[in-house]
């Protein structure tokens, strides 16, 4: 019974935070929410008796992927602040669709 309650809470949290990842529009904020989502998924995996998967999930999903996003945003903002348009290709650059 206890196990079901823990699972239900974690599944609900995963669904909730997963939705907020999708609804967050600003990439930097989204990276942080994604990190929290990764942590919840890691806890869910521990509850489902997969501690090994949880370990990889927390390393990659909570640390590496959000860091890659934040670093990319930092790079883009730095280039923009110096008056350059990073990745501004000649034509067919469908702005905003890549996020």
């Amino acid at each position, binding site marked *: 019974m206890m196990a079901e309650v823990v699972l239900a809470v974690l599944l609900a949290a995963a669904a909730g935070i997963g939705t907020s990842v999708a609804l967050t529009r600003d990439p930097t904020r989204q990276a942080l929410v994604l990190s929290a989502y990764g942590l919840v998924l890691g806890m869910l995996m521990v509850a489902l008796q997969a501690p*090994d998967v949880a*370990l990889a999930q927390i*390393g990659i999903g909570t640390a590496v992927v959000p860091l890659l996003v934040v670093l990319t945003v930092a790079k883009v903002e730095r280039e923009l602040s110096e008056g*350059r348009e990073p990745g501004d290709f000649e034509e067919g650059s469908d702005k905003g669709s890549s996020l």
Partner: protein
Amino acid sequence: MTRARASRLLLAVGGSGAAILMLLALGGLPRLGDVPHPYAERAVPAALSRHTANVISSVNFDQRAFDTMGEEFVLFAAAVAAVLLLRRFHDEEEDAHDLQYGPRDVWSAANLAGFALLAPTMMVGLYVVAHGAVSPGGGFQGGAVLATGLHLAYLAGDYVVLQRLRPVAVFDAAEAVGAAGFVLLGISALFVGDPFLTNWLPTGTLGALASAGMVELFNVAVGMEVASALVLLLAKFLEQALVVRGGGDA
């Protein structure tokens, strides 16, 4: 119809199709926690017969090592592709003056946490790789912990500290050695007359650190490959974000 509308329509059709199929498939899944499970019934005795306490490692590195080799090379190819894409172009230049950008502005608490956690995290990573055949975890998980843990040095110090701690050339070589090591370990079976990727070493005592034969060696190869691939990937992103500037105005 505009392109945006067409692509939304396509997404709606594909998305609802996938949702319906998934709901249908969910009904056919075995119930959570149900014993016996047909796969477990076969995989667990096979793992125990080779003295591999971590059945998942036995599946990954013994019973289905060929799949794992494919996965390893997926990661290898992805890391190589990222490194290639993020290489420095001729019209980009290095900006040495910004090298201490970022971590110096971090709170001292985060600084201290990074410093305190660096060594323990690396130890956990090494432990998880080394005990891959015995306890939950293995090369992939341990490698991910090692690569992430190493970057605590960036939090504790700055970019210069991190660069000294992880010479990119070394990890470049280690990634190749890890990937090639897996294949060479697989080939080693041919010399004793077994098929490719056979677990031919003596399997020792169940639960001992040196048990499970080749499983542990495969774990070490994968650990090296995964840790190096992630470190290289992060190194390229950090370099682009902090050091490289310019380019793209041509």
